[in-house]
């Protein structure tokens, strides 16, 4: 059953070829054997998983129709799960047990999915390599000397190494798509507001969006059917009908207009990656699409604007971790100021502290106009670039990342790390849906192709990705790590 998709396993569960309990045991067993090599999970909840699997088998026997019922799932450790530790990859919340479930968690529970555990991530989702986690870095199953990308690196590595069938992730500036590219799987960030943020620990509220991390566009569509929708508990979730995302997957691509942003094929792009993407574009032409060069003239401002807006919001979002009510508190504080200072100095890692400082600075009296206000103006320009482009084209296609996965510790300069997200970040600033799917290899490492569509055009994007996956087999490749059952 290794390497199977939701769609495949869902059929096996219904034919009785396997049961959810059997499937769950299989995955728990794999996690036990190889998680120590990858460090993809922070928490594994065996007992609860088996109980959920038993319940799922009963529902399946009763004719349950949800395709995720009984399917083993991992949640990024940014989603609050009642009764299970939710760390957000931080010492600050290392022992935090949420008294409530995030909406996304609630929806998967209601649909009968089986939660295997919580996956590792960059601390508070701040990072592009999963190296900022308090719980240690995650290793890339394609090459364990390399990073899996971040911040949803644990979820991406777990799906790639088949330590779960599907996983949740969050994407604030590429955090689903870049790790999906590095790990050779499918990662989908829907439009801002499409999935509730309730119970998802905030990094940058105006950019954060949950999404599926899985083995195919079809699986992403299945997961979207569970995750999407208005939530009265999240005022920024959108009151827009949720289509059946699987309904139009097979629509032919004849007449599809694909935009190729010149700015995404410029200096800094690795030649192997460029070749893989250009090959992929040819594949689309064979499927009936036409290619049109487009401009995203303000794209080069996106990383700068992002690193003002996101830290500014984060600086406020992370103020609640003060040692007063829950989470880490320093030993023997002598007074209030001492408690604040030591709790936050000891509880947060360097990257988180760096961003809190940057954000605090950007919002300070006298700097607000030069930084925060200016960044918001740039954000509107970037959105306008996309709106202009979507008058000519239906989707925009390019590389997810300038290169394949890099080695652990290779990027010690924060700015070099920030530039990892140069192709993905504008999509968050504009609130658009984006997907990364496998499109080839660079020296044995997966290359991700990035596709973007207009606001709430999720179904169209999934259709385009699915047709590509029908015509290619990049998404079916597995790391040797899997067949070797780990390192030993």
């Amino acid at each position, binding site marked *: 059953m290794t390497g199977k998709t939701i769609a495949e396993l869902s059929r096996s569960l219904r034919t009785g070829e396997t049961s959810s309990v059997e499937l769950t045991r299989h995955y728990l067993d794999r996690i036990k054997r190889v998680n120590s090599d990858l460090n993809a999970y922070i928490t594994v909840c065996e007992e609860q998983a088996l109980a959920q699997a038993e319940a799922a088998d009963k529902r399946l026997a009763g004719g349950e129709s949800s395709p995720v019922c009984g399917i083993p799932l991992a949640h990024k450790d940014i*989603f*609050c799960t009642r009764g299970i530790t*939710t760390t*957000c990859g931080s010492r600050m*919340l290392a022992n*935090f047990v*949420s*008294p*409530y479930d*995030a909406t996304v968690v609630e929806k998967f529970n209601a649909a009968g999915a089986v939660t295997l555990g919580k996956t590792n991530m960059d601390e508070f989702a701040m990072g592009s390599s999963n190296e900022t986690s308090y719980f240690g870095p995650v290793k890339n199953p394609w090459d364990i000397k390399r990073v899996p990308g971040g911040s949803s690196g644990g979820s991406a590595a777990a799906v790639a190494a088949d330590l779960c069938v599907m996983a949740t992730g969050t994407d604030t500036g590429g955090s689903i798509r870049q790790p999906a590219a590095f790990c050779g799987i499918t990662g989908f960030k829907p439009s801002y507001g499409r999935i509730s*943020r*309730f*119970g*998802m*620990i*905030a990094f*940058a*509220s*105006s950019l954060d969006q949950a999404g599926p991390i899985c083995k195919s566009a079809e699986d992403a569509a299945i997961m979207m059917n569970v995750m999407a929708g208005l939530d*009265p*508990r*999240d*005022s*920024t979730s959108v009151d827009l009908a949720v289509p059946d995302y699987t309904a139009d997957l097979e629509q032919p691509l004849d007449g599809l207009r694909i935009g190729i942003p010149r700015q995404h094929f410029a200096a800094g792009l690795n030649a192997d990656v460029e070749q893989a993407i250009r090959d992929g574009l040819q594949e689309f032409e064979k499927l009936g699409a036409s290619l049109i060069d487009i401009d995203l003239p303000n794209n080069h401002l996106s990383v700068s604007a992002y690193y003002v807006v996101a830290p*500014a*919001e984060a*600086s*406020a979002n992370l*103020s*609640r971790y*003060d040692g*007063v*009510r*829950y989470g880490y508190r320093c030993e023997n504080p002598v007074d*209030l100021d001492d408690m*604040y200072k030591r709790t936050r100095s000891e509880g947060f890692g360097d990257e988180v502290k760096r961003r809190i400082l940057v954000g*605090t600075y950007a*919002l*300070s*009296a006298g700097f*607000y106009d030069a930084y*925060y206000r200016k960044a918001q103006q740039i954000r509107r320009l970037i959105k306008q670039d996309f709106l202009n482009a979507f008058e000519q084209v239906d989707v925009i296609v390019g590389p997810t990342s300038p290169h394949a996965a890099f080695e652990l510790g290779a990027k010690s300069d924060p700015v070099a790390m920030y530039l990892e997200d140069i192709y993905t970040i504008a999509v968050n600033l504009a609130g658009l849906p984006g997907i990364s799917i496998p499109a080839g290899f660079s020296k044995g490492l997966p290359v991700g192709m990035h596709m973007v569509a207009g606001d709430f055009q999720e179904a169209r994007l999934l259709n385009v990705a699915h047709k590509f996956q029908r015509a290619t087999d990049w998404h079916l490749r597995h790391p040797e790590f899997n067949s070797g059952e780990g390192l030993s």
Partner: protein
Amino acid sequence: MSWETVIGLEVHVQLSTRSKLFSGTATRFGAEPNTQANIYDLALPGTLPVMNEAALEMAVRFGLAINAEIGKKSVFDRKNYFYPDLPKGYQVSQLHYPIVGSGSLTIVHEDGSEKVIGITRAHMEEDAGKSLHEDFHGMSGIDLNRAGTPLLEIVSEPDLRSAKEAVAYLKKLHSIIRYLDISDGNMAQGSMRCDANVSIRRAGDTELGTRTEIKNINSFRFVEKAINFEVTRQREILEDGGRIVQETRLYDSDRDETRSMRSKEVANDYRYFPEPDLLPIVIDDAYIEAVRADLPELPDQKGERFVAEFGLSPYDAGVLVSSRDMAQFFERVVEICGDAKLSANWVTGDLLGLLNKNNWEFAESPISAERLGALVARIKDNTISGKIAKTVFESMIDDQDGVDAIIDKKGLMQVTDSGAIESLIDEVIASNPDQVQQFRDGKEAVFGFLIGQAMKLSQGKANPAQVNQILRDKLNQLSG
């Protein structure tokens, strides 16, 4: 050298919604600590605000009542600062786009002259919790029951020129929010709080002087005292050639003085930015008009109606409408007895005196509007005199019987039987021969004395008009 005082008030009004501004938790006063705080109020990770529409409507009601512009698009902002009773580390407030823009209200001076006071803006924000510094063995306790309670912060223009004007403004504001039923306005419980910005300048100067902000003023009386103390303090400094430091000062009512707070707290940079967890609130004309249609009669309108409909003096009308409860009580009394002037006298006189003496609200009055109406009706139909009515009123406080039953029980019915009054007067004339003689010698003033004797003899029950008439007739007969 004469000085002019310049005052602006920032008033926080706790809106009387059933639940908090951004969470469904109840807002009752006085519950056990931390029993009214849910996951959002505690700022647990992942929680999000959801706007309370009732608070929005209350804010719009207030805006319409002061003829203000209503913000069709208003925006919440985060105001960042660390304090243990502020769970999120920021307060959600409104900076650039408040729900209520500029408006005004009118105050009346003691001499009856009116003055319009500008209101700069009013915005919605969430309250903080409370830090409790007693009984924790040197540590502080935090109670988050109040955290997230909706507040309306109402900022006046620096239009107030004396402590008395400041109090009049605050009382008018109090009256308006009570009429609108958007807050209980209880200053002692903190549901209405006042900070005063005070400065002075030489008479004739157009530039404002350096101001200080006085916090922690929790009664109308303290507003007056705190401002007066601060004005004197500033005048003494300036007259001694000193300079005023712009700072926040706390009013200490025990010592009746203002004290400087640590200057550190003044230097806060709140790093406001738009709250990304909430969309801007967009309202349209239809919404505003629906709220307007639902506005109650406000104190100024009601006062004008009392003058026009009941023939009350503007002063009496002003006193009656200053409190919604009093105005409603009065209207009910009039409804029952049909005499507005008598009703006004009784409500603003004996009844208000009784309530004030016992610190009772109108709702707690032992004499209901219905019973007071019945009492006034008995004055009006001459069953009892005004003077006897006061005796009946006293009895009514403890005796919940009907007015007529009390009059009966105590034998206080007015004597209108001419025969009975005549024999009373005969007795007075017989027992006061000297005074009768003086009257006959032309000393008119003695007449009042004789009336008094007759009333006394009747224990106040004789109809005064009849006593007057019959006494005069009898004295004239004697003279004749």
